[in-house]
């Protein structure tokens, strides 16, 4: 178990290193790194300072070392717009992203798992058909478009929920729903098929033969087994929820998180800020990947014991 953790951690670090190095390469390849890092309106003094700080006149290898060293110290560059260390804004906005992502996960699982189980248990009925249709359509509709529709319907027409901004729980719901939408469909589908398989197994038959109630058989015996293959898929999907999902949702609903910061800084051509946000999100991505992997191993006793 610990060996596995170590192996996964190493993999994660490698991935992070890959991202950081790619960013480094891309900047150097763009032709004019100084312009990227200092901005269009930089004074000659600023440009000189940037050059010195990142060693842009030095040979590439040395530059790379400087870059890596600065990264490990938390120096992600200075935002062109605000003049502050780029990481600071990221850290300031990070809780907002966490809110949306967490709520997204909660809503997704709270709907998707029961829908999948219900559809499997009541296979062949209208409910099952509806659930499956929902899943197929859900995976086809682009989340950002759906987010706009949600905004139109719930915020503008029905005036049930706010159209944007951060505030109380009601502000988190629509962005969370938008983020989790695609995952909800996929998880529901997978849960259904996994449940179907498990419901036909011999140990479920034996559980019924013991006289256990239908609810106990479904949730204690079948569901726990059906969950195992679902978890890996859920992990992969939830991780992308953190990124593409929150970037999109935060942008649509003007939610001040790291996701919208990324887009904002790209539009404003504030490359250091973009870099900081991107690297931060990558780190999160890898971390969550790792955590979920561990959870998966924990659920399956064959691997845990």
């Amino acid at each position, binding site marked *: 178990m610990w060996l596995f953790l170590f192996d996964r951690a190493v993999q994660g670090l490698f991935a992070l290193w890959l991202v950081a190095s790619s960013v480094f390469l891309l900047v150097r390849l763009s032709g004019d790194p100084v312009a990227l890092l200092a901005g269009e309106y930089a004074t000659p003094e600023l440009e000189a300072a940037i050059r010195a700080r990142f060693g842009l006149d030095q040979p590439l290898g040395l530059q790379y070392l400087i870059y890596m060293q600065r990264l490990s110290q938390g120096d992600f560059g200075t935002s062109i717009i605000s003049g502050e260390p780029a990481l600071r804004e990221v850290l300031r906005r990070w809780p907002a992203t966490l809110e949306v992502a967490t709520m997204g996960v909660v809503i997704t699982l709270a709907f998707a798992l029961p829908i999948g189980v219900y559809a499997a248990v009541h296979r062949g009925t209208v409910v099952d058909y509806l659930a499956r249709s929902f899943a197929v359509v859900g995976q086809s509709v682009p989340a950002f478009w759906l987010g706009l529709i949600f905004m139109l319907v719930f915020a503008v027409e029905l005036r049930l929920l706010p159209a944007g901004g951060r505030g109380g729980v009601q502000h988190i719901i629509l962005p969370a729903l938008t983020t989790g939408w695609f995952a909800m469909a996929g998880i529901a589908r997978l849960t259904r098929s996994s449940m179907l398989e498990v419901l036909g197994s011999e*140990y479920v038959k*034996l559980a019924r*033969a013991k*006289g256990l109630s239908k609810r106990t058989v479904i949730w204690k015996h079948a569901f726990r087994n059906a969950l195992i293959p679902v978890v890996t898929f859920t992990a992969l999907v939830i991780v992308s929820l953190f990124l593409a999902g929150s970037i999109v949702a935060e942008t649509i609903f003007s939610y001040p998180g790291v996701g919208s910061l990324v887009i904002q800084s790209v539009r404003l051509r504030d490359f250091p800020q973009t870099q900081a946000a991107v690297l931060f999100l990558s780190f999160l991505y890898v971390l969550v990947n790792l955590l979920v992997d561990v959870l998966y191993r924990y659920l399956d006793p064959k691997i845990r*014991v």
Partner: protein
Amino acid sequence: MDRSISYCLDSESQKASRVTSEPVLRVEGLRMYLRTQQGVVKAVDDVSFDLYPGETLGLVGESGCGKSMTCLSILRLIPDRVGEIVDGQVLFQGTDLLRLSESEMRRYRGRHIGIILQDPMTSLNPVLKVGEQVAEPLRLHQRLRGSALWSQVVAALRRMRIPGPETARNSYPHQYSGGMRQRVGGAIALAPTPEVLIADEPTTALDATIQAQYLALLKDLQQQSQLAIIFVTHDFGIVATMCDRVAVMYAGKLVEIAGVRELFFNEPWHPYTEALLRSVPRLDEDVGRLFAIEGQPPTLHDLPAGCSFAPRCPYAREWCAHKAPPVKVGAGGRSARCWKLFGYGQ
């Protein structure tokens, strides 16, 4: 053959005093039909038998003849989508199980009628500990809790001769071999001390030596209580060692019931039973060619009219294909469905 009969004779004489006149389980006219894409299939067709306390009834037949379906029907474990019991009675100590509500039926499952399934590798839940799986019926039916519960669990595991029962309780199924898992299956079924045990080919998936051990264990446990066992198998060797009476099924119908001794000593009544017995090769005979029953078992949605066995029966006459044979009942409850016993309808 002789050795197995004398074994039977011994236990027969042992049991003579124990057999009471009241059956613990009486199945009467049980019919269960399956829904398939090709139509309705009579998986269990007018099956009737009695089961007495302390005896072992063998249920034999080829694959697909309805043995397992009968057992599942008794426990009402056939899902609605798959099939339905359309007729009959299943009387457990006088109560008709088929007329009970689902929640009433659940009180019988696992508590009064236990079941051991065929494949030990798939019949235990992989994510639950062994102890928990044994504890479930005890917790549910006898409402045991805490140390009372767990001491019973350990006792049940010990009765099935599982080594280290205290630690076994915290282990997972995948840590055990097939033979051990089947013992766990036995512990689960027998922990609540049921009156009836349905054993659905419990040793088919086990090695020969493990098989013998398991059967001996079951026999021991039975002798300590008045446990009645329905033993489903396709192996006549097991029938000879384990069973007191045997019921033979073909194409969903019960074609013969007889005492094991009668079957082996006197001639079987039904041609199918006779053919089955002949196909078991004897070690002390030198046969040039193994005997096999001609033809194939019928597909259940395309049954012939009249006697289902007629197309393959060496004794069949024209009359057999026209009308289904009635049941001839003899001494001691011995019965069979065959026109031969009635002079072919004359």
